[in-house]
């Protein structure tokens, strides 16, 4: 068995041109979508890239237009195809998400070619195949001999689904595509930014990012233990597709011609061939590598019986799919971790500023798969992953860090690329009306208020973005003997107009970057975005523009009542 290894591995690569081509194309597409389509810096302001915004006039729309132009294929398509992403998000969030169509498509594909997703489409699988090719000598034929390892992934799946039933989304930590997307976003995207836009534009590596990178790198490292370790033993997305396998009559068949040479077992990346050379239905991905290496052409993939199954050994043990102990463990672990995240380990610290158009916090956490796609598509890295210090319930979910950068007014990318609708795919007009927080001025720190010195950075920034949510008040005015103000005395100080503020944080960025960081006049930004009750409005459905219009009518009505009150 051992001496034929290298030959077989090499033959495998040569003799599966179609599968290898599809894999390479899918991986290339995945990389293209993540590093080209989601690369926001191809947008530039232009006279054409504008739109009409109610009560704000003509506003730029270049970031939104740029993504729409490049998105012939939705940037989040692979995430939508990972069946566990949409299924678990829909259950946990009790919502319908468009990505369910992707799951359905992959499910139907799975009926035709069982687990085709794993052996053809999944970019994580392809990446691991590449690692396995490099490490072929080390890993050939290795597998974990202990009984039951193959059903760990089912236990993970059960935990994820039970967690979802309890309203907590765990799939983001373990499902294939969120894992690989996050890995690329945290490892490769900063390199792209650094090389193309300068390293000063790369956000520092936080504990949360480091944790994600370590966990991601562990996946190919486990590949040294056995090929496709992750896919064989951990991946719950694959486990979900394995359930589809049980429904389809198409499967691997072995004929009487089998000479029990064992080559098929050696070549199988998924440990899907039992000791009797029959298929472990749930594990088989229809890669057909065994068919290729069989010296006697005893292996076929079809609906009909290729030949009568002929057990080589009396292997009467129950299918390994449902190892009872693990199932029970999962049934306990899923709800426990779900409830733990929800009520125990969640920090309950200050409410975080979420991307514009995010669902209300509970639904948001229940539907956000922590894939990092929004973080990738966000110009100037306004969105940062939440670290473990904020509590585990929000780990790797996106938050606005306005000290780093404010939300670009011509951009709605985060919602467009969110696979589950945790951030709603709002049109730009809606996004500009969606309130993610409210700015608050700290008068004890603000330069004009605290020291009477001139500064209007925040006002200028807000005006340039056409929100006009910060006004002036002339303070420190001197009066003459008759009590009249003396022309030219006093300074202009900023004042919030909360009804116009959407919490984009551009003001905070300016104040922090210039007054705090560059000039060191103050310790922190004197204007900060706050989220939470009364500061944000996050609605599951319906229009933010309508909400603003309703508020406007209410103000008019209150004014009329005031007029009539005399």
């Amino acid at each position, binding site marked *: 068995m051992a001496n034929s290894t290298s030959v077989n591995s090499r033959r495998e690569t040569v003799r599966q041109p179609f599968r290898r081509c599809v894999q390479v194309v899918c991986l290339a597409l995945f990389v293209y979508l993540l590093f080209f389509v989601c690369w926001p810096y191809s947008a530039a302001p232009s006279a054409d890239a504008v739109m009409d915004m109610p009560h704000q006039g003509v506003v730029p729309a270049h970031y939104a237009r740029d993504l729409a132009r490049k998105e012939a294929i939705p940037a989040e398509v692979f995430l939508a195809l990972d069946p566990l992403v949409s299924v678990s998000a829909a259950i946990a969030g009790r919502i319908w998400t468009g990505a369910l169509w992707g799951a359905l498509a992959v499910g139907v594909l799975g009926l035709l070619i069982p687990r085709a997703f794993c052996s053809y489409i999944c970019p994580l699988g392809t990446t691991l195949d590449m690692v396995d090719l490099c490490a072929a000598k080390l890993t050939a034929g290795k597998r974990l001999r202990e009984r039951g390892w193959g059903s760990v992934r089912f236990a993970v799946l059960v935990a994820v689904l039970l967690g979802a039933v309890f309203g907590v989304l765990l799939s983001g930590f373990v499902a294939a595509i969120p894992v690989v997307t996050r890995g690329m976003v945290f490892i490769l995207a900063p390199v792209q930014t650094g090389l193309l836009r300068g390293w000063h534009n790369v956000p520092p590596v936080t504990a949360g990012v480091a944790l994600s990178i370590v966990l991601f790198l562990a996946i190919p490292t486990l590949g040294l233990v056995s090929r496709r370790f992750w896919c064989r033993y951990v991946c719950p997305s694959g486990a979900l597709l394995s359930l589809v396998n049980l429904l389809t009559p198409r499967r691997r068949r072995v004929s009487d011609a089998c000479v029990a040479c064992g080559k098929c077992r050696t070549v199988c990346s998924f440990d899907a061939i039992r000791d009797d050379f029959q298929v472990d239905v749930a594990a088989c991905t229809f890669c057909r590598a065994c068919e290729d290496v069989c010296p006697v052409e005893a292996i076929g993939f079809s609906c009909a019986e290729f030949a009568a199954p002929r057990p080589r050994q009396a292997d009467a043990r129950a299918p390994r799919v449902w190892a009872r102990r693990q199932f029970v463990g999962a049934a306990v672990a899923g709800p426990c971790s779900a409830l733990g995240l929800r009520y125990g380990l969640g920090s309950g610290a200050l409410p975080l500023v979420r991307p514009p158009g995010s669902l209300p916090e509970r639904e948001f956490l229940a539907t956000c798969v922590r894939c990092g796609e929004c973080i990738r598509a966000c110009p100037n890295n306004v969105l940062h992953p939440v670290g473990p210090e904020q509590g585990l319930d929000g780990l790797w979910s996106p938050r606005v860090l306005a000290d780093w950068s404010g939300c670009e007014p011509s951009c709605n990318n985060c919602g467009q690329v969110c696979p589950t609708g945790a951030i709603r795919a709002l049109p730009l007009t809606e996004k500009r009306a969606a309130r993610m927080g409210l700015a608050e001025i700290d008068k004890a720190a603000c330069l004009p208020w605290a020291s009477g010195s001139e500064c209007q950075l925040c006002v200028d920034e807000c005006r340039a973005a056409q929100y006009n949510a910060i*006004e002036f*008040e*002339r*303070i420190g005015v001197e009066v003459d003997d008759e009590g009249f103000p003396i022309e030219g005395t006093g300074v202009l100080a900023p004042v919030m107009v909360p009804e116009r503020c959407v919490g984009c944080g551009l003001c905070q960025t300016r104040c922090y970057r210039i007054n705090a960081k560059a000039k060191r006049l103050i310790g922190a930004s004197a204007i900060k975005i706050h989220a939470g009750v009364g500061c944000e409005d996050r609605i599951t459905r319906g229009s933010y523009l309508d909400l603003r219009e309703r508020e406007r009518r209410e103000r008019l009505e209150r004014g009329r009542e005031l007029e009539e009150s005399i």
Partner: protein
Amino acid sequence: MNRATSALMSTVIFSGAFMSHAGPSATPRARVERSRADVVALIEKAGRSEPEWWDSVPLDYPKTLDMTWTPPPRGSGWNTQKNIGQYLWSVINENPGRWKQGAKFMHHVAEVNKDRPDVRRQAWNSLGHIYADLLQDHARGAYWWQKGESRNMVGLADCYWRLGSKEMAVAALRHVSFDGDRYGAAIRLWADMGEPRRALALAEKTAEAGNEAPAYLSAGNVCRLYGKYDLAVEYYEKVLAVPTQGNRDWKFQKDLARAAIETIRVFETLDLAKIENGTYEGTSMSFAGPLTVSVTVAHNRIASVRVLRHKDKQYYSAITETTSKIVEQQSLRDIDATTGATVTSDAIVNATARALANAR
């Protein structure tokens, strides 16, 4: 600002005098001649009707305001959330987005105080200021100033002139024998109406009465407007010669005068043929602080003039108009005559001149 007259007027009207000078610089004067009767009818009709934006602007003001508009006791400090005059000065005046709301609020103040004639009159005069100086609605501005029996003759004259009646404007402006405005609003208006002699006469009178620096600066601007550069320089030099009086050092006026002299000198010697291709920067004083332009010269032509930095807020259109006129006419001299010597556009011309002077 002149204390003697200010005592009679509300605080708001004063900022009006300040702004009525600066406002026109933004809008090119496409003026329609109208008869006295027409203008009177126009004012009456506008004043008695609601502006078209009336229903779309909510009445909204801090509930902490003292609606009786009682003058604050001496030394009580500045509280914009309590005193109506101070609220107007600090909040409404400073935010263009609040001007319409300010008008609505003032109507409300007049209504609330309908049994207190003094306060009501004060509210009407404030309406005159908000409509004329801020919203550039001169018919309504004139209506409320008339109704409030305002003594702001310069403001009224400016409204009449813009509405089309020089006759009414002259009649109102005749009452002004002293220009107390920091920027010489009355002197400037005479010059605008094609009466440079009367403008200079008022300037001389004002200077004699003690307000020398602003008067001479305005006189210089009048001369510059009419192309009399030698005389203009003479007046500007008079500004520089004014001695410091008490705590008034006339620095602002002197800076403007110095910049104007420099610009006129550059006019005389400017030869674009001698300036190499390149981009040059120049800075000059404007209303609220320094204004910087970047001038690009290519093939002996001024290819572009861009205002890089400035602190003036409400009169942005001077910034695009003046710069595009300089490029259009390839000269600073003609700009001076067409755009008029208002503070912002002056500052642009002056800064451009400095940039080109630096280039040589």
